[in-house]
C-alpha cells in the first residue's frame, strides 16, 4: 500500500499563477528578442555555443547580478542596498529549497505513521492512499516500510516546488531526526533580516536619497511604483506569516519566533491562512507585474551579461540585443547623478534612464526626440552604468535619421582627395576643430620636426570631416561616405601610422574606421616620442590642471598618456572631477539642442573644477575643449598638451 502525503493549501494559487505567468511571459519575450538578433550577432552566438567564455560570464552574473560589485565600488551604501535585495532574496529561495529538501528527506526516511496522522490533523496536508501494490519487491525494501492497521505500507511525501517558499506553514514540527532544523530557522531569519536591511535603505532613499549618495533618484511611473510596492510588501508579509505560525506552533527562528511571541495565539489562530494568503498574493502580484516593469532587469541582466561576454555588441540599427539592453536597465538612476545636464542645467528629463524607459514603452514623437537629441554624448552615464549598457549607442540609434539618399552629394570630395605618396611617413590628421585652434596644429608640426619624423599633414589644405559629428547625430549613411573617402586616402598613401589631434576624430578612426595602420592620439604619440628619447623637453615650473576630454578619456580610455606627458614637462595638479568623472566642457558636438547660454553654464562648471586650486594654466587635449575654455576666461591661459610640449622643446 502506498500512502501519499501532499502539502497544499489554496493560498498557493496566487503564487502559482504569478510564477507561471512570469516565466511564460519572460520566455515568450526572450524568444521574440533572440529572433531579432542580426545575422552578425547570431553568428557570434552560434560560434560561442560551447565556448569557455561561459565561465567568465557566469562569474560576472554572480558578481553583478547578486553581489552588485560595480555599484559597491562606486557607492558602498547603494551597493549594499541592491545586494541585500538581490543576494538576500536569492539566498532565501536557495536556502529555503535546501531546507525543505532536507526536511522532506528526513520525513521520507522516518516512515512514521504517527507523523502522517499528525499531518492529517493539520491544515494544508492531503493524505491519501493508492491501494495495494502488486509488486512484492517494492515493499520488501526494509527502509521504506511502515506497519499500519490496514497492513504494510510505504509513505510517500510529495514536495511541490512551492514548499520551500511556504515551508513553515506546512512543516510545523520537523521530525526529531532532522537536527539542523533550528539552525535552518535561524539562518532563514538572518537572511530575512538582511533583506529588511535593503528594504529600510530603500525607504530612506525615497525621503533622503543623499544619505545613499544619490543626488537625485529616478521618477518612476505608476506601474513601476505599484510593482515596487508589491515587492516591498513581500518581506513584511513573509515575516508576519511566519511569525503567526511561529506563535501557534513554535517553529520559528530567533527573529520570527521573537515577533511571534508578541502575538496572542487565541487571536491569531484564525488569521493564519489569511496572512499566508497575503504573502502569496504579494508574490503573485509582483511576478505578474515584473515583465512589464523595471524589474524585468532581474533576469534580463543575466542574459545580457552572457551575450556581452561572448562578444555581442550594439550595432548601428536596433537589434534583438538592443531589446535586451533596454530591458536590462533597472532604472536605478545612477546615470542621473553624474549627468552635467541634470547637475548644472537642472533638466531632469533627458537622462539615459528616461531615454531607455521611453524606448521600452515604444514611445515615438517629439518627447522621445527631445530626450534623444538633448545629450552631450559625454559618456559620463556610460561609465557610471552598473549594468554596463552601451547608452551612447542607444542614443545614436534613436537619433538615426534613416536611409537618406546621398547619391551625388559627396562627389565634390573626390576633387579634394589628392593622392599622396606617404610611404614611411606618419600621417597627421588635424581635423576640422584643430583648424579652428591653429596653435595645436602648429605645435604638432614643430614636434614632428623636432623628433625628426617625416610626416604628411593630410588635411592641411582641404579637410574631409572624419564623419563622427554626423554619426553622433544619426546621419549614418553620410558618415559612412566620409569615412570611405578618408579610408581611401589613407590606405593609398602608404603611411605607417595615423596621428590625430582631435579626440573626436581619434575615436572615429579607432572605432568606426577599419584602417590597417595604428591610430594614435597626439598625446599618445608625444608620450611615445618622449619615452623613446626622440623628443628632448625641459620641465618648467608652471602648475597646470588637466581637463580629460570626453572622447579621449571615457570614449577611448586614454587617461595615462596625457598625464605622463604633462608630468614630463610641467607640474600636473589633481582636480576633484578627473578621469572618468571629468565634467564635459559643454561645447561637445553631441548636443544640438542646448543653447549657448546652457552650454556656457556647463562650461563654467567644468572650468570651476579645473581652477578650484590655484593654477598657472589649464591643459587639455581636445581643440573643442580648448576653445570652450579659451572663450570663457582671460584669467588662465588654456593650452593643448601639444602646445605645452612645443613650448618646452629643447632645440
Amino acid at each position, binding site marked *: 500500500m502506498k500512502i501519499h502525503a501532499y502539502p497544499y493549501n489554496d493560498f498557493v494559487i496566487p503564487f502559482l499563477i504569478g510564477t507561471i505567468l512570469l516565466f511564460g511571459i519572460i520566455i515568450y519575450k526572450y524568444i521574440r528578442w533572440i529572433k531579432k538578433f542580426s545575422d552578425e550577432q547570431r553568428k557570434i552566438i552560434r560560434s560561442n555555443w560551447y565556448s569557455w567564455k561561459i565561465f567568465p560570464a557566469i562569474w560576472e552574473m554572480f558578481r553583478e547580478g547578486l553581489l552588485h560589485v560595480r555599484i559597491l565600488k562606486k557607492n558602498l551604501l547603494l551597493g549594499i542596498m541592491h545586494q541585500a535585495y538581490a543576494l538576500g532574496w536569492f539566498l532565501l529561495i536557495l536556502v529555503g529549497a535546501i531546507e525543505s529538501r532536507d526536511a522532506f528527506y528526513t520525513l521520507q526516511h522516518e516512515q512514521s505513521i504517527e507523523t502522517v496522522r499528525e499531518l492529517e490533523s493539520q491544515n494544508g496536508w492531503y493524505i491519501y492512499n493508492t491501494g495495494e501494490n502488486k509488486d512484492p519487491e517494492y515493499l520488501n525494501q526494509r527502509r521504506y516500510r511502515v506497519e499500519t492497521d490496514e497492513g504494510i505500507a510505504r509513505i510517500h511525501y510529495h514536495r511541490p516546488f512551492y514548499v520551500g517558499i511556504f515551508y513553515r506553514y506546512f512543516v510545523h514540527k520537523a521530525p526529531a531526526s532532522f537536527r539542523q532544523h533550528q539552525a535552518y530557522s535561524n539562518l532563514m531569519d538572518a537572511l530575512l533580516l538582511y533583506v529588511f536591511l535593503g528594504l529600510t535603505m530603500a525607504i530612506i532613499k525615497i525621503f533622503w536619497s543623499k544619505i545613499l549618495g544619490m543626488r537625485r533618484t529616478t521618477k518612476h511611473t505608476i506601474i513601476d511604483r505599484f510593482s515596487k510596492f508589491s515587492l516591498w510588501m513581500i518581506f513584511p508579509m513573509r515575516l508576519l506569516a511566519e511569525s503567526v505560525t511561529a506563535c501557534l506552533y513554535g517553529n520559528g527562528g530567533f527573529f520570527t519566533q521573537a515577533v511571534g511571541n508578541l502575538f496572542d495565539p487565541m487571536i491569531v489562530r484564525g488569521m493564519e491562512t489569511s496572512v499566508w494568503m497575503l504573502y502569496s498574493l504579494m508574490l503573485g502580484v509582483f511576478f505578474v507585474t515584473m515583465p512589464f516593469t523595471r524589474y524585468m532587469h532581474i533576469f534580463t541582466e543575466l542574459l545580457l551579461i552572457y551575450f556581452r561576454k561572448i562578444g555581442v555588441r550594439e550595432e548601428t540599427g536596433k537589434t534583438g540585443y538592443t531589446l535586451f539592453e533596454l530591458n536590462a536597465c533597472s532604472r536605478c538612476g545612477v546615470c542621473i547623478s553624474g549627468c552635467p545636464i541634470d547637475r548644472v542645467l537642472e533638466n531632469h528629463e533627458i537622462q539615459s534612464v528616461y531615454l531607455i524607459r521611453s524606448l521600452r514603452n515604444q514611445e515615438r514623437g517629439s518627447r522621445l526626440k527631445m530626450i534623444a537629441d538633448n545629450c552631450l554624448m559625454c559618456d559620463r552615464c556610460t561609465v557610471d552604468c552598473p549594468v554596463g549598457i552601451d547608452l551612447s549607442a542607444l542614443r545614436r540609434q534613436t537619433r538615426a535619421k534613416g536611409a537618406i539618399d546621398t547619391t551625388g552629394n559627396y562627389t565634390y570630395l573626390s576633387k579634394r582627395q589628392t593622392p599622396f605618396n606617404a610611404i614611411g611617413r606618419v600621417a597627421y590628421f588635424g581635423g576640422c576643430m584643430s*583648424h*579652428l*585652434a*591653429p596653435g595645436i596644429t602648429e605645435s604638432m608640426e614643430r614636434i614632428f620636426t623636432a623628433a625628426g619624423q617625416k610626416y604628411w599633414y593630410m588635411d592641411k589644405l582641404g579637410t574631409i570631416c572624419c564623419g563622427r559629428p554626423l554619426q553622433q547625430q544619426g546621419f549614418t549613411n553620410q558618415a559612412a561616405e566620409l569615412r570611405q573617402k578618408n579610408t581611401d586616402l589613407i590606405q593609398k598613401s602608404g603611411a605607417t601610422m595615423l596621428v590625430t589631434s582631435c579626440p573626436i576624430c581619434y575615436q572615429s578612426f579607432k572605432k568606426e574606421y577599419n584602417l590597417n595602420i595604428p591610430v594614435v592620439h597626439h598625446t599618445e604619440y608625444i608620450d611615445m616620442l618622449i619615452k623613446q628619447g626622440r623628443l628632448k623637453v625641459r620641465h618648467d615650473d608652471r602648475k597646470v590642471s588637466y581637463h580629460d576630454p570626453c572622447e579621449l578619456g571615457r570614449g577611448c580610455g586614454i587617461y595615462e598618456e596625457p598625464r605622463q606627458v604633462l608630468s614630463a614637462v610641467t607640474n600636473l595638479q589633481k582636480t576633484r572631477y578627473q578621469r572618468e568623472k571629468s565634467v564635459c566642457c559643454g561645447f561637445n558636438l553631441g548636443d544640438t539642442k542646448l543653447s549657448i547660454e546652457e552650454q556656457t553654464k556647463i562650461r563654467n562648471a567644468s572650468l570651476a573644477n579645473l581652477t578650484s586650486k590655484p593654477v598657472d594654466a589649464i591643459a587639455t587635449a581636445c581643440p573643442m575643449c*580648448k*576653445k570652450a575654455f*579659451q572663450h570663457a576666461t582671460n584669467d588662465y591661459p588654456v593650452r593643448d598638451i601639444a602646445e605645452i610640449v612645443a613650448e618646452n622643446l629643447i632645440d
Partner: protein
Amino acid sequence: MRKVAIIGAGPAGIEAASVLAKYGVQVTLFEKSETPLKNIQDKAFLFPNFQAAQEIADDLSGKLLTDGITSAFGIDIADIKWQGTEWKLIDAKGQTYVADAVLVATGYQVFDAHRKEELGYGIYKGVITSLDMEQMIKHGKITNANGDEPKRITFLQCVGSRDEKSGNNYCSKICCVTAVKQAIEIRKQLPKCEASVFYMDLRMWGQGFEEMYRMAQEKYGISFVRGRISEAAATFDGRVQLKSEDTLMGLPLKMTTDLLVLMVGMEASCGTKALGQACGINGEYGFIKTVTPHLYDNDTGKPGLFAAGTCKRPMSIWDSVNDARAAAIAIKDYVDSLPQ
C-alpha cells in the same frame, strides 16, 4: 569743503574733475598707472573729423591743472567702502583715503584676441588687432609680417563683441566706424594697398559716420563684404589665408591678405570689474550698473557713488566726456544736499 574722489584719469575722469573743481569742490583724481589718458594715447586720429588724438589728449591734460584737482597717479584703488557718512577708499598697498562722494570712471580694456584662436592672433604674424593698426598709422609705418609694404589689408568686425561664444553679446559701438576710419587712413598713406572690411552689419550711428562710410566706398574704393571670417591660416610667404562667406552673394570665399586686422571690442576693464564687484554695482558683462539709463544714468543706487564713461558701456570719447559732465553735476547736487 567737500571732497570727491574720482577713480580713473581717462577722458571721463579728467572732465568730471575739472568741472567739479570749477564748482569749488576739492577733487582727488586716482589713476592706477603713472600717466593719465593711457587708452587715448594708443590712438592716431579720431573719427569722424580725423583730429589727432594727441591734440585731445593735450587739451584734457591741460584741464588737470585746474585749481582744486589733486592728481594721485600710480595709486590703484582696490576697494571702496561706505562708512555711513563718507566713503573710504583703500588702495592696493592698504592705504586709505576718505571722500564724501566717489565717481567711478575706470573705463574699458580691449578684448583679448587670443581668445578667438581660429583667427590666429598671436600665432600668425600677419594677424593684428585694431590697436596694432592704430599704432602703425600713428607712426606712418604700415608693414606686413615681413616688413614690406602690404598689398592688401583686411578688417574683421565684431571680434569679441556680438559674439555669444566669447560671452559678449553686446555691440561695442565704436568698431564699425573705427574700421572705416582706419581703412581710409591706410588708403591715404598707401594708395596702392587694397582695403576690405568684413562686417555683420555696419552701424553708422553718429554724426558724420554715414558720410564717412560713403566716402570710404566712393572716394577711397574700400570694399565692404558682409560675412564672418571663420578661419585663418598662414601661407608659406607669411601672408594670411582667410575662409569666409559672402552672405550677400551667398558664396563661400577664400582670399589671401597681407594683414588681417581684428576689430577688437570693448570690455569692462579689470579695474571696473573688480570695483563693481567690490561694491556690488556690477551689471552685465562686468560693466557698472546704473539706476536707469534715462534719467539717473550716473547714479549707482548707492549714496554718493557715481559712475561715468566706458565703465558703464562702450562709448565714444565725446559720449564719455558728456557723460562725465552730467556726472559732475549730479555729484555737485549730491554734495550740496549733504548736511553741513
